[in-house]
C-alpha cells in the first residue's frame, strides 16, 4: 500500500462531522452570558451613576410631560404625576386641588382648539368633563359649618370663574358637558348663605323666610333660594347700608361746614 493510498483512506474520515443544530446551539450558549453580563454591568458596577441617570430620565420625562395635551404620547405620564401629587392632598384641600386640575384640563382643551388638533378634541373634552365632575363631587362634600368662610368664598369664586371659561369655550362651538358644576356651586353658595343666616339674630318674619329658603334648598331650587334671599334679606341689607352711607356723608358735610 502506497503512502498515497493511506492518505486517501485517512481523508475519508473527513465525512465525520458534528450535527449542525448542536454546532449552532453551542455557539449561542457560549455567548448568552455575555448579553446578561453587559445588561447587568451598568447597574451593578456603577450604582451611583445608574441611579443618577435613572433619576434624570425619570424627572426629565415628567418635565417634558408637563406641556403635553390629551392624545400626546407623554400625556399619561402627566396624569400619573398628577395622581401621585393627589396622594399628598388633604381632604379639605381637595376642592381647591380639583379646581386647579379642571383649570389645567381647560387649558389643554383651549390649546387643542386653537391649534386645531381635531383628533385630540374628543379626548380633551372628556378630560374636562371628568375634571368638572371631580370638582362637583368635592364641592358637594364641603360642610359649610366646618370650613372657613374665606376658603369657601374662594372656592365659590374659582368655581364661578371655571364656569365662565367653560361657557367661553361653549361659545366657540365646542360641546362640553359638566352642567352639574353650576348646580353644585349654587348648592354650595346656598349652604353657606343658610348657615350664615342661622347664625344671625332674625325677626320672626325673617325666620319664616329662612324656613322657606331651607325647603327650597332641599328641593335643590337654588336659584329660588337666592332670589328669595335677595328680595328679603339682601334688599333690607342694601337699604341698611344706604342709610348708613347717607349718615356718614351727612357727618362729613357737617364737619366741613364747621
Amino acid at each position, binding site marked *: *500500500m502506497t503512502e498515497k493510498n*493511506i492518505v486517501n483512506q*485517512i481523508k475519508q*474520515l473527513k465525512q465525520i*462531522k*458534528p450535527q449542525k443544530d448542536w454546532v449552532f446551539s*453551542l455557539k449561542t450558549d457560549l*455567548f448568552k452570558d455575555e448579553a446578561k453580563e453587559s445588561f447587568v*454591568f*451598568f447597574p451593578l458596577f456603577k450604582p451611583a451613576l445608574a441611579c443618577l441617570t435613572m433619576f434624570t430620565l425619570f424627572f426629565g420625562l415628567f418635565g417634558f410631560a408637563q406641556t403635553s395635551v390629551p392624545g400626546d404620547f407623554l400625556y399619561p405620564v402627566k396624569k400619573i404625576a398628577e395622581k401621585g401629587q393627589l396622594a399628598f392632598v388633604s381632604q379639605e384641600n381637595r376642592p381647591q386641588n380639583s379646581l386647579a386640575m379642571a383649570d389645567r384640563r381647560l387649558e389643554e382643551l383651549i390649546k387643542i382648539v386653537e391649534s386645531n388638533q381635531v383628533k385630540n378634541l374628543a379626548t380633551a373634552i372628556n378630560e374636562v368633563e371628568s375634571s368638572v365632575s371631580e370638582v362637583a363631587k368635592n364641592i358637594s362634600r364641603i360642610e359649610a359649618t366646618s370650613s372657613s368662610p374665606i376658603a369657601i368664598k374662594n372656592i365659590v369664586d374659582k368655581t364661578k370663574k371655571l364656569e365662565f371659561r367653560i361657557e367661553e369655550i361653549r361659545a366657540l362651538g365646542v360641546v362640553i358637558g359638566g352642567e352639574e358644576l353650576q348646580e353644585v356651586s349654587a348648592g354650595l353658595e346656598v349652604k353657606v348663605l343658610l348657615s350664615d343666616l342661622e347664625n344671625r339674630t332674625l325677626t320672626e318674619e325673617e325666620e319664616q323666610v329662612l324656613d322657606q329658603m331651607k325647603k327650597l334648598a332641599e328641593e335643590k331650587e337654588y336659584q329660588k333660594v337666592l332670589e328669595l334671599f335677595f328680595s328679603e334679606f339682601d334688599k333690607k341689607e342694601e337699604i341698611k347700608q344706604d342709610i348708613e352711607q347717607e349718615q356718614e356723608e351727612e357727618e362729613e358735610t357737617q364737619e366741613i361746614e364747621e
Partner: protein
Amino acid sequence: MCPTLAKSFMGNKQKKFSKIYDQYIEKIYRFVFLKVSSQEIAQDICSETFLKGWQVYKKNNKIKNFSAFLYRIARNLVIDHYRQKGKKQFIPLESVAILDTNPGLEEKAIISSDLEEIRANLVNLKDDYQNVIIWHYLDDLPIQKVAEIMEKSEGATRVVLHRALTALKQEISKKDIKQA
C-alpha cells in the same frame, strides 16, 4: 471603564472568537470523536474546549495561534476523560496508545463500517501519531501549525508524521493479514 466602551470591546472579542469557532468547531469535534468514538462524549468535550477557550480569550485575545491552544485543551480533556473512566494511564502521552477503541453498541450506527475500520486503525496508533495525522491530513493544517500545537520544531514534526504513516500502514497490514 465606561460600560458602553466595555460592551463594544466585548462585542469585538465575541466576533473574533466567533470566527475561530466557525473555523475550528468541526475539526475539533472530529478530532475528539475519532478518539472517544461517542457523539455525546465528543459533544461534551468539544463544548468544554470552546468554553474554556472563550474564558481565556475574553481575558487575553492576543494569544498567538489560538487554534493550537484549542487543540491542546481538547487533547487534554480527552486524556482526562479516559483517566476518569479508569482506563490504563498513558504515561508518557506520546508513547502509549489510547485503549478502548471500540465504539459502544449505540454508537456503531453513527459512522459506516468502512469508516469505523479506518478509525479503528488510526486510534490503535500512539497518541502523537494519531494527532499528527489528524491535524495534517484531516484538518489540513500545515506542518508549521502542527508543530506549534505539538510544541516541537517543524523538522521534528515531519519526522513524527512520516513515522505515523508508516505505523498506520503496518496497522492496516496487520488487519489485512488477520482478515486473510
